[in-house]
């Protein structure tokens, strides 16, 4: 059997990009030799988007991109499995397994594993009781008022609690103390630690936000703590909405924004309600004048410049218009000044203090407005505009001349959160706004992108665990069950008619190859933890665990029992989808026998000799 070039490329690429597996990630430098710049990347999608790839590589990148877009996590899993499986497929081909048998058996094996791991699902039941306390809350805990200044100070999440959350086990007294059930501080800090003996076994699922956040943090407790805080803050403002139904909590990521702050250490990151941004220090006097009193704000969806027109409108070019009568047309600068005056008139007439603009702002206008005591913020994200519109009843418009009293939102607060290298960090919020901003700090600017990616990965993880209302026990439990399942399947076919005659002959080789995928995943994941320094040792340990699970007779029960102790959770659908995508990718490449370069009409066989044929 000839070598399969596609599978070889896939294996090599996937293994190179698979170094981002597991909680301990090593960043990589991507150097562009032509331009001489280099980028530090910390995740597989970021790496792949920087590389120039061939056809197979692009399929790999597409699979990773799709997984990242759909779930935001588990791309490392995808790459690790795709690499191991393409190696396994190659070996099977060399053993003479026909492609169709390989495809059928691999699909059968994965299908069986997907069915088997369903038994390991743990429910996540965070009821509103754990998230929301009955009102009225003690004054010190009341999250009702918008408090300018330190958003933490009297929210229970006191500034001292900025250390990462410690996973805490559910406590027996959760239900007993109804009055303070909100007790977010307890959940987030968990400083008391689990009561010995009272911890419910994790087989019964997760009932506690603190526990969930801790168990999902995957070596990045800081980001997960931020995500948990965002969830809690959003849940607080949700509970203020009239007619809000206390369903199970969900994390709506369109209501979470990020704001970079280079300089301070990572631990200084925090989450604040409302929209936070960095303003140049020159605006400080204006900000301090506006701070601490209810403000009137308007929201503009386009640019605030004279030449802005909404998309889809093409004003006629001036050369096409001949003006009859009158003197020469006004100069451009005059026109702009006249326009600025009109805008200022509109804003003044409505007694606006704050203008939030989605696009750019004409610099001249910004100065004029500042002189009139109006603060103009540009590049405000669309989600921020809409969340503020929803909370204040203001209506976002495209042009300043559309503004009317109906478009003004009242009661908006401006607060200074701190001072950074680049200026003031301010937040814009309003009572009950369903919007939070994670202010991400990072000492090295090169790591900023990775910092943000990590935050979003944590937020996506929390969002999906809540959305699915179930998790898997982590730490390799699921993979171990798959291994035992495959072992059973290879030895004992389901029922004879389920498999085509002839397939059984190849089953041990193919299913063994499939098992290698999870084996190498487990070994790689374990070897990155401190007690197992080498991959070899990790592999031995995996083998031992597998033997124990199989010989116990009921692997799923054994694994659930064994994996109870460390509180680590994995997501369900993202993980299973990553498996499926990895196998799809390998099978797609496996079944491909030719690469047709179109346009220039080249046909190149990827399998065997490189033959080029012109049609």
């Amino acid at each position, binding site marked *: 059997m000839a070598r399969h070039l596609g599978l070889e490329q896939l294996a090599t690429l996937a293994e190179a990009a698979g170094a981002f597996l597991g909680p301990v990630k090593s960043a990589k430098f991507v150097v562009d030799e032509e331009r001489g710049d280099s980028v530090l990347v910390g995740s597989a999608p970021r790496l792949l988007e920087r590389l120039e790839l061939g056809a197979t590589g692009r399929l790999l990148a597409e699979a990773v991109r799709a997984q990242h877009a759909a779930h935001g996590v588990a791309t490392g899993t995808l790459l690790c499995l795709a690499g191991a499986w393409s190696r396994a497929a190659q070996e099977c081909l060399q053993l003479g397994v026909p492609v*169709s048998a390989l495809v059928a058996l691999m699909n059968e094996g994965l299908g069986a594993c997907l069915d088997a791991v369903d038994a390991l699902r743990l429910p996540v039941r965070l009821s509103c009781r754990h998230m929301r306390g009955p009102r009225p809350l003690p004054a010190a805990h009341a999250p009702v008022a918008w408090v300018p200044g330190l958003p933490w100070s009297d929210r229970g999440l006191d500034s001292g609690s900025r250390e990462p959350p410690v996973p805490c086990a559910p406590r027996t007294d959760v239900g007993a103390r109804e009055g303070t059930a909100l007790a977010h501080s307890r959940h987030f800090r968990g400083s008391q630690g689990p009561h010995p003996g009272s911890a419910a076994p994790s087989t019964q699922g997760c009932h506690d936000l603190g526990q969930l956040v801790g168990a999902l943090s995957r070596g990045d407790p800081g980001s997960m703590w931020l995500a948990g805080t965002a969830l809690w803050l959003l849940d607080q403002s949700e509970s203020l909405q009239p007619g809000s139904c206390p369903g199970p909590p969900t994390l709506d990521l369109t209501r979470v924004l990020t704001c970079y702050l280079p300089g301070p250490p990572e631990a200084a990151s925090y989450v604040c309600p409302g929209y936070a941004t960095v303003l140049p220090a020159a605006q400080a006097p204006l900000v301090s004048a506006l701070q601490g009193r209810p403000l009137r704000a308007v929201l503009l969806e386009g640019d605030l410049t004279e030449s802005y027109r909404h998309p889809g409108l093409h004003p006629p070019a001036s050369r096409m218009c001949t003006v009859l009568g009158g003197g020469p047309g006004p100069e451009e600068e005059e026109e702009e000044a006249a326009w600025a005056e009109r805008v200022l008139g509109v804003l003044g007439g409505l007694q606006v203090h704050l203008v939030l603009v989605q696009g750019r702002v004409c610099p001249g206008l910004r100065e004029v407005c500042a002189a009139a005591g109006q603060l103009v913020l540009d590049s405000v994200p669309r989600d921020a505009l809409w969340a503020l519109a929803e909370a204040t009843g203001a209506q976002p418009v495209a*042009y300043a001349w559309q503004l009317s009293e109906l478009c003004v939102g009242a009661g908006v607060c401006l607060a200074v959160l701190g001072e950074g290298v680049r200026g003031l960090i301010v937040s814009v919020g309003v009572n009950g706004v369903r919007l939070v901003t994670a202010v991400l700090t990072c000492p090295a600017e090169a790591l900023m992108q990775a910092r943000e990616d990590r935050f979003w990965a944590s937020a996506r993880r929390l969002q999906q665990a809540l959305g699915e209302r179930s998790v898997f026990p982590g730490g390799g439990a699921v993979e171990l069950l798959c291994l035992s399942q495959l072992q059973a399947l290879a030895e004992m076919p389901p029922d004879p008619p389920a498999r085509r005659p002839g397939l059984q002959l190849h089953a041990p080789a193919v299913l063994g190859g499939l098992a290698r995928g999870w084996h190498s995943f487990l070994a790689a994941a374990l070897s990155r933890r401190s007690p197992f320094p080498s991959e070899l040792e990790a592999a031995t340990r995996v083998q031992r665990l597998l033997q124990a699970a199989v010989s116990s007779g009921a692997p799923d029960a054994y694994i659930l029992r064994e994996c109870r102790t460390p509180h680590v959770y994995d997501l369900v659908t993202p993980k299973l989808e990553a498996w499926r995508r990895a196998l799809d990718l390998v099978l797609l490449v496996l079944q491909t026998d030719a690469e047709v370069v179109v346009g220039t009409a080249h046909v190149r066989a990827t399998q065997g000799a490189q033959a080029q044929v012109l049609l």
Partner: protein
Amino acid sequence: MSRLEAKKPSLCESEPLTSERVRATLSVLKGIITSCYGPSGRLKQLHNGLGGYVCTTSQSSALLAHLSVTHPILKILTTAMQNHVSCFSDCGLFTAILCCNLIENVLRIGLPPTTVIKLNKHLLSLSTNYLKSEFCGCRIPVNFSNTEMLLCLVRSILTSKPACMLTHKEVDHVSALILKSFLLTIPENVQDRVILGKSIIVPLKGQRVIDSTVLPGILIEISDVQLMKMLPTKNSDSLKVALFCASLSGDLTGTGEGSMVVTYGVSLENAALDQLLNLGNQLVNDHVDLVMCQKVVHPSLKQFLSTHHVIVIDRLGAALMEPLSKVTGTQPIGSLDSVSPSSYGSVKDLSSARFGSKHFLHLITYESTICSFLLCNRNETTWDELKLTCQTALHVLQLTIKEPWVLLGGGCTETHLAAYIRHKACREPESILKDGYSQTELQLVVGAYCSALESLAGSLEHDGGDILTDMKYGHFWLAQTNSPPSINWQDLLSRCGCGLYSSQEELKWSFLKSTQHSFVPQTCLPQETVISANKLILDCYTAKLSGLQMAVETANMILDLSYIIEDQN
């Protein structure tokens, strides 16, 4: 100074098919196409070599759309194939492979083309007459009172496209959805002519296939999540709809490249906006509830309308206009001057829906033959392939409702037909031979024709397995590679290609390639056999029949070529 260049002489190539080069390129093309055929066909990566999108496919339509061929003979072949695919969607590879096989086999026997062409025509009409006849042993009438057969037909199409990457469960789910969406396009009250509706495929890439669904009515993707909150509480039975195909962005229409003369002090933009607001006034006075526009709506007009509780949806795009106009009963409005009340239409209800990360507005309409097919697949490559496949399946269902038969799939129709023709030519040569051709000539051409059909069926196997045919029904049987030498076929085979017969029957098999002696394949498929079988592999009758005709006629045309004259200027 003008410069004249002498014209190049035309290039003339005589007997093009005798050239080694032509035969070689033909066999490369055949290799590419043949390797794609069937459920275990190999895939092709198509890309432009410069980066960007990689199309991974084994479908004739995608393959042909990208493949550029230069030789005129290949062009004839690919054009014929494309014509067939554009009319019938299915059986493109079938047509192309059969055509290549015929050309190759005929060149091998070395008879004069005129003789071969004449005889081929006779054999073609013998084949089509048999397939159309009542006693045909590989044709089944479709029972519309039961979905099973239609589901089998759809499932066969889905499983024959491996690049869709579907598991068995997903195949079942998507087949059911395709059938459901097809049934939704059939009008309830049928007069003398049935006009089928349309199912609109709405893309949802990145989701699980199992999340795909079919909804009656139209789904419009909305980027504006806030619009959802504006949905009115329903106070009447229907909503009045105005549909614009003209831009409402405030653009000055109709100026083209010309220039305009404007009086001083007049702002063109304001004039355009005034006109729009007048239109808005009229819409409000006419109690329109929903305004939809193919292009952009001016923000001021939007603001004006929404203060009057009119819902505005813009940037619908051209593709949705025709179905929208059909289901709402509106006349798309192309001018802003005045709107005739007769162009308004209505929808029954409006709701919002969320699938994956996308938000949709769901229009539920009185006209019920339009449905939306939300199609999911994990990534772009597999989604594109699945979309093409679904379109093919929907088209095949439409063809099947016109001619309510299906053919046995999985290679069985081809081998059965070949056996039938061999038998006819051997036992009743006088039924074919009327023009005075010799018996030997007939045997040679029949051999070429039938082995073209048989090796077409054999192309379904790509892993070197053994291909057999039984001596009773003439069906196609496949044995895995590396079968042990002491052969007990009964245990090694399970079911025939189409799934109709089991190997446990008392059958005799022979290798397909060595089948030279003729036997009478059993004609007249008994109804009970079909009913008792489940999960049959079925092929579209109309598409396969015309594919057969197209293949033989194209092969005849190519065989008939004696000169290629190329203008080199």
